[in-house]
């Protein structure tokens, strides 16, 4: 934690941490506590006064079927995004680590999407799936599928899941490849001598050995799907059609900035904060456990 040898105490360390602490207090701690305080208030219809109502906002959410639906939608969305992008990345990394020369070449070609902003990823996909002009609906027509994500909620959901997963494949691929390359070659060779083919070696040796990475990526991908996909949804569907792609973070934005339901939006923020904290704790416990290996 602290160096054995350190500088004598002086006012200097306070000056050094001051900028970071000031920003943390003004833009993190204060707004977060405001969100918590606001979640106990209900404003009147004209925004002139507000009333302290304890947990009524949470109670309203608890009984709100729209919120329940958004919660389950978010769960399905994030599980599918994580499964799709991790599965695809795992397959690609599994094959890439077999290539001695050229693994880095493939890596260069596969990491691009990491650099692309979620909203841009959304724009790219919405262009490809544009119902009148897009390339993929044109081909889907031949197999008898009429694509219109402006009308069909299921298709809209599929589109945002695809765009979100596409962007995250690069990240998962990098971590999987690094994990696989750190497995000692002698282990793989021993299995090969014992007669295990590539598929068997992958499932019985490589996959179990990289399970810590899988768990780590699962948490990271869930956090990504919960929060960072806002741009994709805002660009592609704006939560629609109806509310078929309104996930929790989009609902906070929509209820707060568009619907101006400050108390309800703040209560949703608090619930999201609890969720992030839970995920961070899970992740840190895992990191601590990994150190013991």
């Amino acid at each position: 934690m602290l160096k054995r040898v350190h500088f004598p105490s002086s006012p200097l360390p306070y000056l050094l941490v001051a900028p970071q602490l000031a920003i943390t207090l003004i833009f993190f701690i204060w707004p977060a506590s405001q969100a918590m305080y606001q979640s106990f208030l209900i404003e009147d219809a004209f925004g002139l006064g507000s009333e302290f109502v304890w947990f009524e906002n949470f109670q309203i959410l608890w009984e709100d079927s729209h919120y329940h639906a958004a919660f389950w939608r978010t769960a399905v969305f994030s599980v599918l995004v994580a499964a799709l992008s991790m599965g695809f990345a795992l397959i690609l990394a599994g094959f890439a680590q077999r290539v001695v020369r050229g693994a880095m070449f493939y890596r260069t070609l596969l990491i691009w999407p990491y650099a692309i902003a979620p909203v841009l990823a959304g724009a790219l996909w919405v262009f490809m799936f544009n119902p009148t002009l897009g390339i993929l609906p044109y081909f889907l027509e031949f197999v008898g599928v009429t694509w219109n994500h402006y009308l069909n909620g299921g298709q809209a959901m599929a589109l945002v899941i695809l765009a979100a997963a596409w962007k995250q494949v690069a990240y998962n691929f990098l971590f999987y490849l690094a994990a696989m390359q750190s497995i000692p070659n002698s282990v793989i060779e021993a299995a090969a001598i014992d007669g295990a083919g590539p598929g068997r070696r992958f499932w019985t040796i490589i996959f179990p050995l990289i399970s810590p990475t899988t768990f780590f990526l699962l948490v990271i991908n869930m956090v990504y799907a919960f929060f960072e996909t806002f741009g994709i949804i805002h660009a592609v569907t704006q939560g629609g059609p109806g509310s078929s792609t309104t996930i929790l973070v989009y609902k906070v934005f929509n209820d707060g900035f568009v619907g101006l339901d400050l108390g309800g939006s703040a209560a949703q923020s608090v619930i999201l904060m609890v969720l992030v904290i839970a995920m961070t704790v899970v992740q840190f416990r895992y990191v601590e456990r990994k150190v013991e290996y």
Partner: protein
Amino acid sequence: MVENRPLADFITHLVLVLGVVAIALPIWITFVAASHDEIRMAQAPLPLWPGDQLWVNLKQTLFGEGLSGTETAPVWLMLFNSLFMALMISLGKIGISLLSAFAIVYFKFPFRMACFWMIFITLMLPVEVRILPTFEVVANLGMLNSYWGLSIPLIASATATFMFRQVFLTVPDEMLESARIDGAGPMRFFWDILLPLSRTNIAALFVILFIFGWNQYLWPLLITTDTSMTTIVMSIKQMLEAAEQSPQWNIIMMTALLAMIPPIFVVISMQKLFVQGLTETDK
């Protein structure tokens, strides 16, 4: 490779090539769309092979009127805003995290652990979950529509502080002992020994943070109402909305291309640093 299996090798490369094609397809289609004229881009099926209008579209997008029927800032100004915001966020984060990590590792002072935990908490509060109150704070401070408002609230970073703390902890104690014997004060030690030693870590972190800053969307969207402060990433959404009336896909996709080229360039050209930064900050 462990054994020689020509068929398995063939399948390996086949799968990888297919994977690359699937990953690259959206980017390729964007590039193709940006290289055709407006008339071609209004007829289905859209082309899959680049046209010859790339240069014309680039000039029209960068310096032309922009999309007809929308009031947006010129694209070159939005690119500049994005660059300025990304640099302020990344350099600001690196600066304040270096200083606070230095204080936490090399000084013993009352409330040291309290400071540490306060910084730690910021790890758990992404801007998305506290947007409304943070917006109010920034509005009260009069920082709407300014570069300060765009960057300062995003500058505090627990991950960067932790990473530098980790780096400083690996610096041998003898360095500090000998520096003190030679009469160097804390700031001298920081400048002349710690900074040079953590040069690659700073560069690796810069790559990650530059991309993080460039790709900010929700926050700029909320606090800029003045079109001269819009960033390039934000503008895409406005263009998609405008596309419903005037589908100038060649211009929209050229703008999208311009918005993603700088971060892609940073990732590809500094790939080694990028991978290092990614694995260090997230683990």
